[in-house]
């Protein structure tokens, strides 16, 4: 709790931001995007209880997200039709969480006996099985059409109908803050610590009195609870739950968010959820190649940044804390390195966009625009320019990265020397 108290400033700031955001972005699309971010933040944090904190790579965590979504949609419909007793809509995320828990406990029991690759494969098997069931158990899943619902159901306490999106925004925001706080608190409990221990060294864990299976199982169950909560909010937000919510695609998306954001820091999944959800909503309308960029970004983080994007930032935390002046000699190499990366990316993206355009264009017209510059994709010039920029950038990267890494190493050496004293 000491950690919580120390960081209460951050939590208060988060509350303030959450309250103000919809006043800045008032369009329906922006609110929808924000709502999705809220849902995905909870889901990502829940997923990271497995991946980042417990060391379990799952390809099927959307199962709990989706099942909770379906259940809540049915509950809402039941309330609307009067066949189910009234449950305040504001509390449905808890119902979703319990559904997640209900499935997470038995499935977790069988799948957490092994970690690593076997666990990943079992999770994939369950995901495929559940996807198949959505098409077989029509009464519950309603096939590919999914379950429609109306969140404007039952009485309207304090005039809250959840009809307008803004009300749902505040519902999601409140639950998102609560869930984030709860999951953050969990990392400071004995369970949270043992979960890290089972990730770091399952063998040793047994010799301090803990069953690795039990620790993983508990992590799995709690994670399923929060995933279910996210699924319930998803159902409330979209008012529809479809078969894709339980599938491997949804699990892959959350994996991408968590990993790119950074699985090693608590803030990482939040960062990833916000960035990827934003790009997903906005970039997909701008470029058809967005999925390719996402895949490449993911691979690059796996290869070079195990801590994800947040890890890249947080690796400078100790320098910041020791002495801000240590950054001074780093400015130039960093600027060069980042600049070279941007140039290389601009060139490469230009090339990819040109290829995409030529590959998917449907008319004979080869005119398009690249970075708002009108170009003729059939002529050689834009290709040469892009290739030239990309090559230039790549060469610049090759030269700039070493001094950049060296300047970082220097700063860290100073930090370590200071700490040793």
């Amino acid at each position, binding site marked *: *709790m*000491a*950690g919580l108290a120390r960081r209460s400033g951050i939590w208060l700031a988060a509350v303030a931001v959450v309250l103000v955001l919809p006043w800045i972005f008032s369009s329906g699309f922006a609110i929808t995007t924000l709502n999705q971010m809220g849902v995905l933040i909870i889901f990502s944090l829940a997923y990271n209880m497995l991946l980042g904190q417990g060391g379990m790579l799952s390809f099927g965590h959307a199962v709990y997200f989706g099942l909770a979504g379906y259940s809540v949609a049915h509950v809402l419909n039941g309330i609307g039709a009067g066949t189910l007793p009234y449950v305040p809509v504001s509390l449905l995320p808890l119902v979703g969480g319990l559904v997640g828990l209900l499935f997470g406990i038995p499935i977790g029991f069988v799948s957490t006996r092994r970690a690593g690759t076997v666990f990943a494969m079992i999770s994939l098997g369950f995901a495929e099985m559940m996807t198949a069931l959505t098409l077989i158990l029509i009464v519950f899943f309603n096939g590919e059409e999914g379950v429609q619902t109306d969140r404007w159901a039952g009485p309207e306490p304090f005039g809250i109908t959840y009809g307008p999106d803004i009300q749902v925004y505040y519902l999601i925001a409140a639950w998102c803050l609560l869930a984030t706080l709860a999951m953050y*608190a*969990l990392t*400071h*409990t*004995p*369970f*949270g*610590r*043992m979960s*890290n*221990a089972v*990730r*770091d*060294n399952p*063998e*040793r*864990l*047994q*010799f*301090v*009195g*803990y*069953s690795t299976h*039990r*620790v993983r199982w*508990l992590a799995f169950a*709690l994670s399923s609870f929060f995933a279910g909560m996210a699924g319930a909010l998803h159902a409330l937000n979209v008012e529809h739950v479809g078969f894709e919510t339980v599938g491997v695609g949804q699990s892959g998306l959350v994996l991408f968010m968590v990993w790119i954001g950074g699985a*090693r820091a608590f803030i990482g999944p939040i960062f990833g959820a916000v960035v990827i959800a934003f790009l997903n909503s906005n970039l997909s309308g701008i470029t058809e190649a967005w999925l390719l960029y996402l895949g490449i970004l993911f691979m690059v983080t796996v290869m070079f940044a195990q801590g994800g994007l947040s890890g890249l930032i947080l690796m400078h935390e100790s320098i910041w804390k020791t002495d801000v002046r240590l950054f001074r000699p780093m400015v130039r190499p960093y600027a060069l390195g980042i600049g070279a990366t941007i140039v290389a990316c601009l060139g490469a993206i230009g090339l990819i966009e040109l290829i995409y355009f030529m590959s998917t264009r449907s008319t004979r017209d080869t005119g398009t625009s690249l970075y708002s510059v009108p170009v003729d994709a059939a002529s050689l010039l834009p290709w040469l320019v892009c290739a030239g920029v990309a090559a230039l950038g790549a060469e610049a990267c090759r030269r700039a990265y070493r001094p950049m890494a060296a300047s970082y190493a220097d700063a860290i050496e100073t930090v370590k020397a200071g*700490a040793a004293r």
Partner: protein
Amino acid sequence: MTAHALELRNLRKSFGKTEIIRGVELAIEKGRIHAVIGPNGAGKSTLYNLITGLHPVTSGRILLKGADITDKPPYEIARRGLSRSFQVTNIFPRMSVLENVRCAMLWDLGYRYSFWHFVGRRRDLAERSEAIMEQTGLGSRRNVPAGLLSYSDQRALEIAITLASGADVILLDEPTAGMSRSETEQAVALIRKISQDRTLVIVEHDMGVVFDLAETISVLVYGQIVASGPPAEIRANTAVREAYLGPEAA
């Protein structure tokens, strides 16, 4: 008669057709420092792995403070007060020193799988972890990730984790392996310090350390105990010298 701290009765273990442990009989008295020595391949590590439940035994029984722990899983055995260190450093590398030590004591202090206590606010945790870090000289590095510690600090942490669980029977596996002379001396001092109120079993190659520390020595050769006794007796035992130290030493 009070039970022995640890007792092995006709313990056997085979991997495939090869029998590695061939009927070990061993009784370790409470509060003693008991060393197990033997040439490479004698089965010392296997013996530890059997005692701590890592491998199932082929036959025979293992008693911890009089209770049968044969074929119990490692965590059950640990909960009954037996703890071990490892020859190859075996810590939680991405967690800080403090977290490493704390993790090891959570079960013993009754926190089990709790997700409603905050580890940072519990006085009992703080007190014991402070005591152990002080004992092992790790206090100044409490917030360093364990994976970044120097080798000798990692060895100290290895022992700290072993101690933190509150066990009264401790198995140390080559605690001074790879250490310089001065580091070894520090380690021996540490072991002597922690042996108060505890039963220690040590597997060690450094004979200086063994004859310095141990009150009883057992010699394991080809999966069998060929001799057991106080250091002086073992030193004088010709059979031991021949089998273990080599014929020219005899």
